[in-house]
């Protein structure tokens, strides 16, 4: 075993862990000396340095080579998405949690770094057992992050998240064991080699179904989404930002790796009238249920955080539409979408956090007159929500259009029989409905007047947390190829 190569390969993760330990050490020292916890700004600064360092370390690793360990893979997909996870993680760290929510910023941010480490490891493996361990590292950190603010709501959120997450982990692991029992293989390529085209044998099918259920929990796909509204509402905004953006991107990558690489031959068919059991059909059903439930329930929400949670459920649905098409281009578009979705949801959460700090709650009414109090927040909110709703020229539109277009194209036979048309049609209609609840929020911010029009000042890092995703969404909306090209190339190289 080449330990030096392994070290280089794991350098980003190592940088993160070391930064987390340093942060903990500094926090403990400062607290012992001054009897006061480390200042929030310091904790944020140290974590940012760590994440930027990890990004830089990413460049030292080999790009496409033999992995130094059978547990880890070195492929372009992993590399691109490590960068994505680090970027989304950096944004989440930049969003300062409310001072009164978090009493120990040192520990909180160390946990953030551990969670990001777990997500990085998850992206960089195709060994099922290691995947489980890495996913649990991330999940355990996130359970703690969700309940960090010691309020009753946060405790409820954390407990729910933990219980649902625990059950889903059990499903995931049991499914893996069934798959292992059938394939006698633990890595994705070995599984692909062990499978033959055609329907899966029953045991492996049950195993795969359980794995999908487990991942469905992580992705907040309906009907496994019950934790999401409470976690989005109760947990500190920073934790929610990580759970909503980075962890969803990772879930999508795991799905792509497992299903499109490992079980490609056993997709079955979700074509209307020609359905065959297989993961494509299951994903299509999950997608339809998620889109309908998420969008319909979001219509009735008055808390913006809960609204964003249901919008997350709906967006998981769109994502699964593209993945169920079982093709490279659709998968590329899906990965594109999960990134821009992460940016937009993160931004919306950042605005919500700012409004909460100012007004004390996250009801729709708290946003009234936002454009007069803070034009920056209002404009940023406009960008984020219209991107989520899929209105051009923002990246969310490009993502949705490409997902639906590619899904339809991949699933259509040249003879002109429309295939996934029913699902894409449903997705287009549901996406149109979603504009209604996003507009409800924008109406408050732009149309409704509020007596209080005193300007609001934001901290620098909070301002960055609004500006960076907004600029990225506009840029990626005008030039989607900037992100789509590396993703598609990575997928194509990985598929070879």
């Amino acid at each position: 075993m080449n330990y030096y190569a392994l070290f280089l390969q794991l350098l980003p993760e190592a940088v993160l862990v070391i930064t987390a330990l340093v942060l903990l050490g500094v926090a403990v020292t400062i607290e012992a000396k001054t009897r006061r916890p480390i200042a929030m700004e310091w904790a944020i600064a140290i974590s940012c340095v760590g994440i930027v360092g990890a990004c830089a370390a990413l460049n030292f690793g080999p790009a496409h080579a033999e992995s130094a360990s059978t547990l880890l893979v070195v492929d372009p997909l992993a590399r691109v998405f490590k960068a994505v996870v680090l970027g989304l993680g950096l944004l989440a760290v930049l969003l300062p949690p409310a001072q009164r929510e978090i009493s120990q910023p040192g520990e909180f941010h160390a946990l953030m770094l551990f969670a990001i480490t777990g997500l990085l490891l998850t992206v960089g493996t195709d060994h099922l057992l290691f995947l489980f361990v890495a996913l649990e590292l991330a999940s355990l950190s996130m359970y703690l992050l969700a309940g960090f603010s010691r309020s009753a709501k946060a405790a409820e959120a954390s407990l729910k998240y933990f219980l649902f997450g625990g059950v889903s982990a059990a499903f995931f692991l049991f499914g893996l064991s069934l798959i292992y029992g059938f394939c006698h293989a633990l890595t994705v390529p070995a599984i692909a080699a062990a499978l033959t085209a055609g329907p899966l044998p029953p045991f492996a099918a049950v195993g795969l179904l359980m794995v999908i259920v487990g991942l469905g929990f992580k992705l907040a796909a309906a009907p496994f989404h019950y934790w999401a509204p409470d976690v989005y509402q109760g947990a500190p905004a920073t934790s929610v930002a990580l759970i909503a953006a980075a962890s969803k991107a990772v879930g999508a990558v795991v799905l792509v790796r497992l299903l499109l690489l490992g079980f490609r031959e056993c997709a079955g068919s979700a074509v209307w009238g020609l359905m065959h059991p297989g993961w494509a059909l299951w994903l299509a059903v999950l997608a339809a249920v998620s889109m309908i439930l998420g969008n319909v329930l979001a219509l009735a929400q008055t808390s913006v955080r809960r609204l964003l949670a249901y919008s997350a459920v709906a967006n998981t649905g769109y994502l699964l539409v593209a993945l169920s098409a079982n093709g490279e281009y659709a998968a590329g578009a899906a990965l594109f979408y999960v990134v821009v979705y992460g940016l937009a949801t993160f931004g919306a959460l950042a605005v919500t956090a700012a409004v909460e700090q100012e007004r004390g709650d996250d009801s729709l009414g708290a946003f009234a007159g936002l454009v007069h109090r803070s034009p920056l927040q209002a404009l940023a909110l406009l960008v984020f929500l219209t991107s989520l709703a899929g209105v051009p020229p923002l990246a969310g539109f490009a993502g949705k259009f490409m997902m639906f277009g590619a899904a339809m194209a991949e699933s259509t036979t040249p003879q002109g029989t429309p295939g996934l048309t029913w699902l894409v049609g449903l997705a287009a209609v549901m996406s149109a409905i979603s504009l209604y609840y996003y507009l409800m929020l924008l109406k408050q911010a732009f149309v409704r007047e509020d007596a209080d029009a005193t300007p609001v000042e934001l901290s620098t890092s909070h301002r960055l947390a609004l500006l960076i995703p907004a600029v990225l969404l506009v840029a990626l909306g005008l030039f989607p190829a900037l992100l789509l090209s590396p993703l598609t190339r990575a997928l194509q190289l990985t598929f070879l």
Partner: protein
Amino acid sequence: MTPAWTLISAFAGALLVLLLPARSAGMARVVALLASATGALAAAAACLAKLQHPDAPAWSFDRPWIPHLGIQFHLAANGLSLSLLLLTGLVAIAGVLFSWNVTQRPRAFFAFFMTIIGGVYGVFLSRDAFLLFVFYEIVILPKYMLIAIWGSTNREYGAMKLTMYSIGSSALILIGLVVAYAAAGGTSFDLDFLASYKYAPSLQCWAFPVLFLGFGVLAGMWPFHTWAPTGHVAAPTAASMLLAGVVMKLGAYGALCVAMPLFPQGFFEWRLVIAGLAVVGIIYGALTALTQRDLKFVIGYSSVSHMGFILLGLATATHWGLRGGMLQMISHGIVAGLLFGIAGRVVYERTHTRDLTALGAFDLWRTLPGAAFAFTLATAASMGLPGFSGFVAEISVGIGVWESDPWLIVPVAVGIIVTGAFSLRAMHRAFFPVRDATAAAAPMLPPLTWPEISAIALLISVSLAIGVYPLPWVTLIDDGLNSPLFHSILALP
């Protein structure tokens, strides 16, 4: 100047207006006027160049945009798009002039206004389905904001209804375009390529109505027209002008230049259904307008009726019919803009009522003779009297109908008669009321301002020009209709 300057000037204008410092917010209208004038000039120059050199190669701009899905940034303009660009430019100038007195958040107002104009230009210029859809959807959010923030009667409801209809219709368009893309091999979104692909008849049969309905909703097709009157009434004057004048034309343009060439066989299957809905729309809109008490509702429902003529022209599948539909688009764009401008800006800002009976108390033909004169001309144009653009358009549609389905001419004639009735009724009640000698003297009203007069003069002269000498417009439109895009429609029986 290439036609691209229309697009550039509109979006640059929107950006410039936003970047104005807060203390010079009053400059917003000047910037918007300059940007609109640049766009209109660019469109006019392109039209003139086309008329002088009809055989010169058409301008086009083609760059790869998202190569993975075969999406190109492809702009081009034939005579058909050029004439609509010019219409948009003219309505934009008039819209800015009629909004000269907007003082509430003027920068945001004109930024949204110019964004709509830019989106409309973009749709008319796009030769790539994805690009066309982008511009088509760019228009939606500014529409909502204009109505919800600056609107009047029931604005939040009207804005939301209009937006949900628009986004719902674009969901249908999205499905239709994506199906066409996928069925043609999933390699290119180029409209000319998609139109040249022979789709299976079974696919055309269901994909055409989806796509056509998507565009038809925006074109005010009965029974999906209900967003139009409420939206037009709730909107501020400039937005009503844009909505009725050009945004509804996006739907008609999409139906003509996207839905029909893409699925010609589907079109022939559904042709009579469309014609039927169009005729119902003509008569229903006119009859409803006959019973309205609010002047803007009268104009709103008259738009539904007039848009029916466009759809009917398209449904004839004859050269005359398509040409008439196009002429009606241009004519209605001018006339509806004019009517909404007079009713919403000139009259309402002074009297603060649009109720036909209440307006009678103002004795408008004495106190506001300029407005009464302009409205009379506009009504004449709207009724399609000879000498105005509406006549040229309706007679062409009529010839088309006679060529394809002669029996349909009867309900069309009924529609024209009812149009005359409601137009005269509204004009009479609002501007020339019968007053007994004992009634109190009407209050004095401020006279027309220069921006109002110039906008009215601009629109009326264009309508008259088309009515008296339609040849240039017909030449431009025929250039578009002779392109290969329409061979499959006009060549078939």
